């Protein structure tokens, strides 16, 4: 596993030197969505809560950076702490009210919160620019350079993966699993299921904010669609494609989704139809995601190699 991880790190580190400009842009987009998907899955995998409102954390961080840069002339990179703080605050508010509910009711409430934030952003022309968004947000220095942004995004992905790995092994990570497996039993060993679910929501939302910040650096602009339900849906699709049970599944799913779209669009205008068919096939035949395809192949090849 460590050898595979080291090989993947080397490939990812060398990738920008073998990609042309467009390929590099696609790679950055895949990394940003990867950060978002890993962050989303921290909540989904560990607590079983399916949030349809993570666009609110992603988009609020993006808008915080955009507003500070465009209105207060802040240095782009200096906006990161405040962008993360706003994402955390948004996650705290949504999480506090939503985790009291379960299953579809939780999902619908998170969606409602995100849609409210989208509606405000969409209509508040004087502050957010409404549906015109905020443009011309070219970051200076490292983040303004495609290779620099690629490596910054790669480091962000590595950081998020490291945080998730550490949390999963910690008592708090085990507690989240306990709450997911049996909340009543968790309460009966002295754990407040509510407090831990809110904490997981805030951590997941804050890390999603990191993806939102990188999104602005990549896109040089923000629009209300960053807060729209389709953004929440996109990250869920990435997680389904990659497989939520596999550690790197969401990041791999994000890469598959981002790479697949231009490939399909170059052949047909019916990208949503193609995506729907891929999702249908995944859910019906490979519910554990694309990572399970490789593992199945490895399992089939192992006995042959041994023979």
């Amino acid at each position: 596993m460590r050898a595979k991880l080291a090989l993947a790190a080397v490939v990812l580190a060398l990738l920008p030197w073998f990609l042309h400009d467009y390929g590099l842009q696609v790679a950055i987009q895949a990394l940003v969505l990867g950060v978002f998907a890993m962050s989303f899955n921290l909540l989904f995998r560990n607590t079983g809560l399916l949030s349809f409102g993570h666009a609110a954390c992603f988009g609020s961080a993006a808008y915080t950076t955009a507003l500070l840069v465009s209105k207060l002339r802040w240095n782009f990179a200096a906006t990161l702490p405040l962008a993360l703080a706003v994402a955390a605050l948004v996650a705290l508010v949504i999480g506090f009210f939503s985790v009291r509910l379960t299953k579809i009711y939780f999902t619908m409430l998170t969606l409602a919160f995100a849609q409210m934030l989208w509606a405000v952003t969409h209509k508040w022309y004087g502050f957010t620019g409404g549906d015109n968004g905020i443009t011309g947000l070219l970051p200076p220095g490292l983040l303004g350079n495609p290779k620099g942004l690629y490596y910054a995004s790669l480091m962000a992905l590595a950081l998020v993966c490291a945080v998730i790995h550490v949390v999963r092994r910690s008592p708090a990570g085990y507690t989240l699993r306990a709450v997911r497996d049996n909340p009543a039993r968790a309460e009966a060993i002295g754990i407040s299921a509510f407090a831990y679910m809110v904490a997981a929501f805030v951590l997941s939302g804050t890390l999603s904010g990191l993806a939102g910040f990188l999104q602005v650096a990549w896109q040089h602009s923000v629009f209300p669609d960053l807060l729209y339900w389709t953004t929440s849906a996109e990250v869920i699709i990435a997680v389904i494609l990659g497989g939520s049970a596999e550690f790197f599944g969401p990041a791999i799913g994000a890469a598959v989704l981002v790479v697949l779209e231009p490939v399909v669009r170059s052949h047909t205008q019916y990208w949503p139809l193609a995506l729907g068919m891929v999702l249908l096939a995944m859910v019906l035949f490979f519910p554990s995601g694309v990572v399970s395809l490789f593992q199945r192949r490895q399992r089939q090849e192992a006995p042959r190699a041994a023979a």
Partner: protein
Amino acid sequence: MPLLEVHRVSKSFEGFRALDDVSLAVEEGSLYALMGPNGAGKSTLFNLITGRYKLDAGRVLFAGQDISHTPTHRIIHYGIGISFQRAIPFPSMTVLENVTLAVLALDKKTRDFARPLHSYLDAAKRAEEIISWVGLNDLKRQVTAALPQGDLKRVDIALALASKPRLLLLDEPLAGLARAERAQMVGFIRELLRSLGTTLLFTEHDTEAVLQLAERIMVLHRGSVLAEGTPDEIRSHPQVQEAFLGREA
């Protein structure tokens, strides 16, 4: 002063009176049983004491402290261990991880998001001690999802013991067990409590098991107290004989 006092508690569900004006007192060191058929109100009373249900009326006192409206996760920290009727410990974890987590929860160390759970050696040592009490040493590295019902009950009791309870609450500890396993479980609980000196309040509808294990018994019938006393008093109680022991008064 009794360790646990329940004062005139009542509970209704959508107009149905599940429990009506029930009081009991459990002395420290005693083995107290709530007996009755399904629907008698045993589990409702259990869930009211453990804070899972809200009281409509009455009070619950533990060691003189009012715990009537205390949520379950806080009740544990007063010294009450809880084991549920459907024993489903955390299935994705091993027996040792289950009990270590319960030990850490009591010490409020589950708030740690950074240090690995396995590095809490003191907690693991305490967990291993508890696992040996319930006789699961050989299975401590097993994922609980793969365990049979009898062993799951023991893991669930181990989770309850991790809270260093002065009072152990067991809801139907024999539910789902085969006849041979039931006799084993009764012996196991009696031995365990004798060695630990913990007070026990348990619910059970297996009359024979209750009469074997308990020192005092409350018989509930349709949400009300039918009788209360020692096993001998319960055996000879005319209404209990008529209703549960299959004999005419």
